[in-house]
């Protein structure tokens, strides 16, 4: 086994995703802790262009696999199997994204490797890899230990800064042959959630409503407040899952990323997937009855109380 780290870049529809550059920072940190090199795999799409862009400070080697355009889990698995065979890295690092989690667990299972996902921080203590993870909807943090040899990890996005400085990595085409007969999924394209009547990314003030609203009919309360303060109504995932508001109103990882001047989160606990979509707001206000709700960690102003008491009062303040 080498002491190296093999990290995997992620791209979609012709663009590298930011987590690719975060993976360089995290991968460098791990390679330093293990005393090895950082290898980066870039698979499918315009790999030569991607490799140029990914050549940032901290990367030692970039391996390109020029096959197909978009993500396919079986292509990624075949490519990574060949690369891991060749490099025998101590750690395979994938992003903890929808696509990262579509191949990392399969790779771990096929090779009998331990897997630790959604890592938000780590250290190496001798022969032990110590991962920091969250549990119970971010209410506790845990450390999980495993031998720091031949393991698979996925790192949460937006936890490490993006690597920015230009690097001097050795870029080479990987010696990989993809077996077309062993590719299962057939992807025909992409669909975007319809923009609909309103673009929440354009709003200066957003009033966002979450699970705490309890019933679809109660959304009226939020709409009344939004009317009174001339704001746009947005939502967290459970509200959209329940069809209380349409999908184009959803803020978060699987919805829109917004950065209004003022964001008022009502009955939203502040799960990491939601916060990912709104932490860039100028001023964040949270109204939630649970004082331990993670939304208060990112809020500038807060009211710890029953939203059904507070929201009508607030609406009235603005003449609604």
């Amino acid at each position: 086994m080498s002491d190296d780290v093999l990290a995997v870049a992620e791209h979609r529809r012709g663009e590298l995703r930011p987590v690719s550059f975060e993976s360089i920072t995290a991968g460098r940190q791990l390679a330093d802790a293990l005393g090895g090199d950082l290898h980066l795999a870039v698979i499918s799409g315009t790999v030569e262009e991607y490799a140029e862009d990914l050549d940032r400070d901290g990367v030692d080697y970039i391996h390109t696999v020029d096959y197909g355009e978009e993500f396919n889990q079986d292509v990624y698995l075949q490519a990574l199997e060949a690369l891991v065979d060749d490099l025998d890295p101590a750690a395979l690092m994938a992003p903890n994204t929808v696509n990262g989690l579509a191949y990392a667990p399969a790779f771990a299972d096929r090779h009998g490797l331990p897997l630790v996902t959604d890592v938000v921080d780590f250290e190496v203590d001798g022969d032990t890899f110590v991962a920091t993870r969250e549990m119970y909807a971010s209410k506790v943090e845990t450390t999980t230990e495993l031998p720091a040899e031949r393991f698979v990890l996925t790192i949460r996005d937006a936890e490490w800064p993006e690597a920015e400085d230009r690097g001097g990595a050795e870029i080479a085409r990987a010696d990989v042959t993809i077996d077309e007969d062993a590719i299962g999924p057939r992807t025909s394209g992409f669909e975007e959630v319809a923009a609909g009547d309103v673009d929440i990314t354009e709003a200066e003030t957003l009033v966002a409503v979450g699970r705490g609203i309890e019933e679809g009919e109660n959304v009226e309360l939020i709409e009344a407040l939004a009317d009174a303060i001339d704001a746009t109504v947005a939502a967290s995932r459970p509200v959209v899952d329940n069809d209380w508001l349409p999908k184009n109103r959803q803020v978060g990882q699987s919805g829109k990323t917004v950065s209004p001047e003022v964001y008022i989160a009502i009955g939203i606990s502040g799960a990491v997937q939601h916060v990912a979509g709104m932490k860039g707001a100028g001023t964040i206000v949270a109204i939630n009855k649970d004082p331990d709700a993670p939304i208060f960690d990112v809020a500038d102003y807060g009211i710890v109380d029953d939203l059904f008491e507070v929201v009508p009062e607030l609406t009235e303040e603005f003449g609604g």
Partner: protein
Amino acid sequence: MKVLVTVKEVAALEEDFEIEGTSVPEQYLEYDLNEWDDYAVEEAVQLQEDGIAEEVVTATIGPERSEETIRMALAKGADRAIRVWDDAIEDAGLLDVGVKTRVLERIVEEEDPDLILTGVQASDDGFSATGVSLAAAMDYQWASVVNTLDLDADDGVAKVHRELEGGIEELTEIDLPAVLTIQTGINEPRYASLRGIRQAQQKEIAHQTLDDLGLEATAVESELTLTDMYEPETESDVTVFEGDPDETAGALAEVLRDKGVGAE
């Protein structure tokens, strides 16, 4: 067609809780059916109602307490359930993805389903990996984070939308047998009817041990060890308004007006 749904009973923390060692004592935990699995159960039951699935079987790794949760899945329409637990699992500590895969793999081999539905993730430990890992172990195809499913049973093809980040969906087809990890919002999970709840009492929950599954106690040994659990240090510098709703709303309104909110 036979559909197997993996069902997990998850714990959520009470508002006030304590940590003892690397766990939270039972009195601070509330147990429920994992939210993602609720959608997976609903999807399976709908396949049954559409005449596509002949049988819906649930599989759970959990102690006797979890039978209450399993009964909820049965009350919503699943036909029967399998629950795996024994002393070796009880004492194993962290059940990581590899352990869960090894146990579920034996059930799948036994049941030989055409389709396996799992939740995308469990709300307690959140590994988000067991479904894909299980598919790899079984050499099945898989599609993860599915939020639309159109099953062509005659051709043995699942046409799915995979929900990617940023409001983008990937349109993909895979061949059965397959594992689909189900995302919330794919359907509207029903509430169990009184009739369903009554019927569930008569349905079978087969309890199995590792031995029954042909596994040694070593099958639940993990290379991962949970070594610490703590409340995260908050980096919050939030200003919290105190008082009755009219006072807090008034104070907040003042701040909002300062920010130009509500000014025409």
